[in-house]
């Protein structure tokens, strides 16, 4: 154990020294540039040894954000897995949580070093802009630094006290893990406010820049949408990166025991990644809508203007994530005895997923040659006219989510046989189900009431009432589902709810989306939220139902952990590359939407690098960032594993 810790420290010391040298070198080079400039004038911009300052900050900030996403996402599920282990008494969960934390601990030092490097880059290369940001946010910057200490203490306390608190202080240990999450998340929220302030500034005078309210500057308009989006995305990111780590370890494992362990770890990683990926499009939609509210210019640039083609790339990456996640589950069924009963569904899910991908991918404005345009005879081909708009895209993304959820359901029940009647699960199951359904219904009622009280013109408002009816039908369907479950028809109830949800959210609302697009496009924003609410309510109720229905069900076969086809492990690697690329791309879009503004509407970026990059330039830079991150993270994980190798050799 001591040797293990020793090696870990050596690894971190190596990273710290490396980072320190890099920072010193950077400072020397950057300061060299200062002498070259006029001494009297306040320097606004510098470059990094001839390299564009924007490019340097772009790369460093993305790398910092990617490591930070990992460091913030992993503790959430590490603690959850530990709690499951503590409640169930299954040591495997505890070991898994520990392995997650080992990776976390290794990545933490790099995140901090990257953060330091980013701060130096910003202060060194954009002194004028950072002077202003410091003037506005310096009180929060101190809090940020203090919280960083708290996070570091919690993390090291959490990792190194694992053995000491294993027997008697398990719940205190879990408490440490929860505090690690609290401090980490707060830290991210603080830093988010700086980034979103640059997009939607408030609390300042937009003419003079004078600070009028620090609170308003901190809690600016886009702050919460970005917080929510990043929080969920971090979990997905952490899950898929952990999945890839497990895949690499699985492929290199020699013993059956190791293969079984890493197979299971990969499954958990993929499960976490997919579970977080499901609500992510909704959070993304919310963020996009709020960006449009903050500024129609940014909204237009994003979805219809200079950045619209990056969203096609985003669609490809999201499609890859859903396909990869499903592919992994389907291959995983190979190692489950009894799964053959459900294999017949795969072909249908596969067709649906690829169809959804095709629609999701189709742009509204297609690249057409002059001859093609002449043959079509109008600006839009019907495929792009009908598939390229939000009404269709919302419908297919919901169908994609429902299909992936269905894949997961059949995976879960693959080795399950006869189930117990629901009444046998006792009152606790009934109460849990009633609470779940009750809360879900409460939310749907709240949203329906909100819709009915909207202050809209009469000719627009008439288009809102079908949405309210959809919500009422869904509430009724949930009640019927619960009643069917109580009368021991749980499996049928699940199918019933899935069908009703698909009919409302996919079939009817897709059609109705086109109607409101034509008649009252303002209603489209409420339609999208209705669609999301209906689907999410179905997912929550069906998932909780599934847990109870298959509780203590007879097993028709074993799960042969470690006997999964190698192809599935490549799928895990693909998922990791896709999510890292996606984060790099979306980070660029979020930041790039400001175009030539440091602080949108107040401080313009007058540096040489203020241009909006072409898609090719963005592609090359994002690829470089992805390669750098994957190389760095592999190096850090390799360092974290050195202790283990030594231990194995000694043994």
């Amino acid at each position: 154990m001591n040797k293990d810790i020793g090696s870990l420290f050596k690894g971190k010391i190596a990273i710290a020294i490396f980072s320190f040298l890099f920072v010193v070198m950077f400072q020397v080079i950057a300061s060299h540039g200062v002498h070259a400039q006029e001494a009297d004038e306040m320097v606004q911009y510098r470059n990094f040894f001839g390299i564009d300052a924007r490019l340097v900050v772009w790369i460093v900030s993305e790398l910092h954000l990617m490591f930070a996403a990992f460091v913030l996402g992993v503790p959430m599920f590490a603690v959850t897995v530990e709690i499951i282990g503590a409640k169930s008494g299954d040591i495997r969960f505890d070991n898994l949580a520990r392995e997650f934390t080992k990776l976390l601990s290794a990545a933490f030092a790099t995140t901090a070093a990257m953060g330091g490097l980013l701060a130096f880059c910003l202060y060194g290369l954009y002194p004028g802009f950072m002077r202003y940001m410091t003037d506005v946010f310096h009180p929060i910057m101190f809090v940020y630094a203090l919280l960083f200490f708290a996070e570091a203490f919690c993390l090291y306390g959490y990792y190194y006290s694992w053995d000491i608190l294993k027997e008697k202080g398990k719940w205190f240990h879990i408490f440490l893990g929860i505090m690690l999450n609290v401090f980490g998340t707060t830290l991210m929220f603080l830093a988010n406010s700086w980034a979103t302030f640059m997009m939607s500034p408030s609390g300042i005078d937009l003419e003079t820049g004078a600070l009028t309210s620090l609170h308003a500057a901190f809690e600016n308009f886009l702050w919460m949408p970005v917080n929510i989006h990043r929080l969920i995305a971090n979990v997905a990111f952490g899950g898929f990166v952990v999945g890839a780590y497990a895949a690499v370890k699985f492929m290199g494992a020699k013993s059956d025991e190791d293969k079984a362990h890493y197979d299971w770890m990969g499954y958990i990683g993929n499960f976490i990644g997919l579970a977080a990926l499901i609500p992510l499009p909704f959070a993304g939609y919310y963020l996009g809508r709020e960006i449009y509210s903050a500024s129609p210019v940014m909204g237009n640039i994003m979805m219809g203007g200079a950045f619209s083609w990056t969203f096609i790339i985003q669609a490809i990456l999201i499609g890859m994530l859903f396909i990869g996640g499903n592919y992994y589950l389907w291959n995983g069924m190979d190692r489950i005895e009894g799964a053959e009963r459900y294999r017949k569904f795969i072909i249908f899910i596969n067709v649906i997923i690829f169809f959804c991908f095709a629609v999701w991918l189709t742009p509204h404005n297609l690249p057409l040659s002059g001859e093609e345009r002449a043959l079509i005879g109008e600006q839009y081909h019907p495929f792009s006219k009908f598939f390229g708009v939000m009404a269709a895209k919302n419908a297919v993304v919901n169908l994609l989510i429902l299909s992936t959820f269905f894949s997961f359901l059949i995976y879960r029940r693959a080795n399950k046989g006869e189930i117990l009647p629901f009444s046998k699960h006792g009152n606790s199951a009934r109460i849990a189900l009633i609470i779940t359904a009750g809360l879900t219904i409460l939310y749907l009622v709240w949203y329906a009431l909100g819709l009915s009280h909207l202050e809209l013109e009469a000719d627009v408002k008439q288009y809102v009432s079908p949405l309210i009816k959809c919500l009422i039908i869904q509430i009724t369907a949930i009640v019927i589902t619960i009643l069917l479950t109580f009368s021991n028809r749980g499996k049928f109830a699940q199918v019933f709810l899935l069908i009703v949800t698909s009919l409302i959210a996919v079939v009817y609302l897709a059609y109705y989306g086109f109607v409101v697009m034509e008649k009252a496009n303002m209603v489209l924003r409420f339609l999208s939220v209705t669609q999301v609410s209906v689907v999410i309510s179905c997912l929550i109720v069906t998932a909780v139902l599934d847990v109870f229905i298959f509780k203590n069900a007879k097993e028709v076969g074993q799960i042969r952990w470690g006997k999964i086809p190698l192809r599935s492990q490549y799928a895990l690697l693909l998922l990791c590359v896709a999510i890292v690329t996606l984060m790099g791309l979306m980070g660029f879009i979020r930041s790039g939407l400001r175009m030539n503004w440091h602080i949108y509407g107040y401080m313009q970026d007058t540096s040489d690098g203020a241009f909006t990059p072409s898609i090719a330039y963005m592609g090359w830079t994002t690829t470089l960032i992805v390669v750098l991150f994957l190389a760095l993270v592999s190096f850090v994980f390799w360092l974290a594993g050195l202790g283990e190798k030594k231990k194995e050799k000694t043994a």
Partner: protein
Amino acid sequence: MAKKKDSYSMIWAILSIIVVFVIIKFVSPYVFKILLKKDHAMPTPSTLMLWYMILGVLGALVYVSTSDLKWASFLSFMLPTEDDKTKKLLQKMIVIAFPLLLGWFVYSGTVPGTASPVELRIQHPTLLQKYEKMENPYSHVSEDLKLKYIEEGKILYQHNCRPCHGSKADGNGPFANAFRLRPINFTDPGTIGTVVESFAFWRIMEGGPGLPDGSTPWDSAMPAWEGTLTDEQVWKIIMGEYATAGVVPRQREEME
């Protein structure tokens, strides 16, 4: 039977891909012709053709590799066989067709041709900052006055915009066929319905010459109306244009 079906999974996969190709290439143009009541077929653009076919091939490959058994039976189709004559014939067809198909791809991609280049258009060019906060001065007037301005706007629209955008705002004006890039069909809810009024104001005022570089300005024949029409006239035209097309402008969302 099931075993036979499994051992022919490569053929099933190829057939599925062919079916997808036939639907997209040959069936859909006529389906759209009938459904949309057009007088000509609507051929699928080459970009979409390529994307959908890539997805089709990928979908087939994903399905045949969802288990070790499926993957093995997919690949084993190409193993030598003694007694199955159909299989032998199909194997030969694949061995001949695959390189031919690949060769055709290479040839068609590299042979010099006279086709005009495919253009990557931007749907909504970036609205200039000065127009962002601009609001229609007539949006808060009384209903009666609003109706009056809409009527005035409709007349102004017919005088100035009809030749290209058509009397019904459907992009079918008398001059429409003369342009390489047809005038926008405003009745399509994916056009002016998706932008705020100030966006329409900018496009009318600055027209094609005012488009940013990324929006291929040489394509649009839209004239700049600034200096010809007054601001008030343009706002009225916008009101009349939306009313004629039967769509409503995008509403700004309230910042809570």
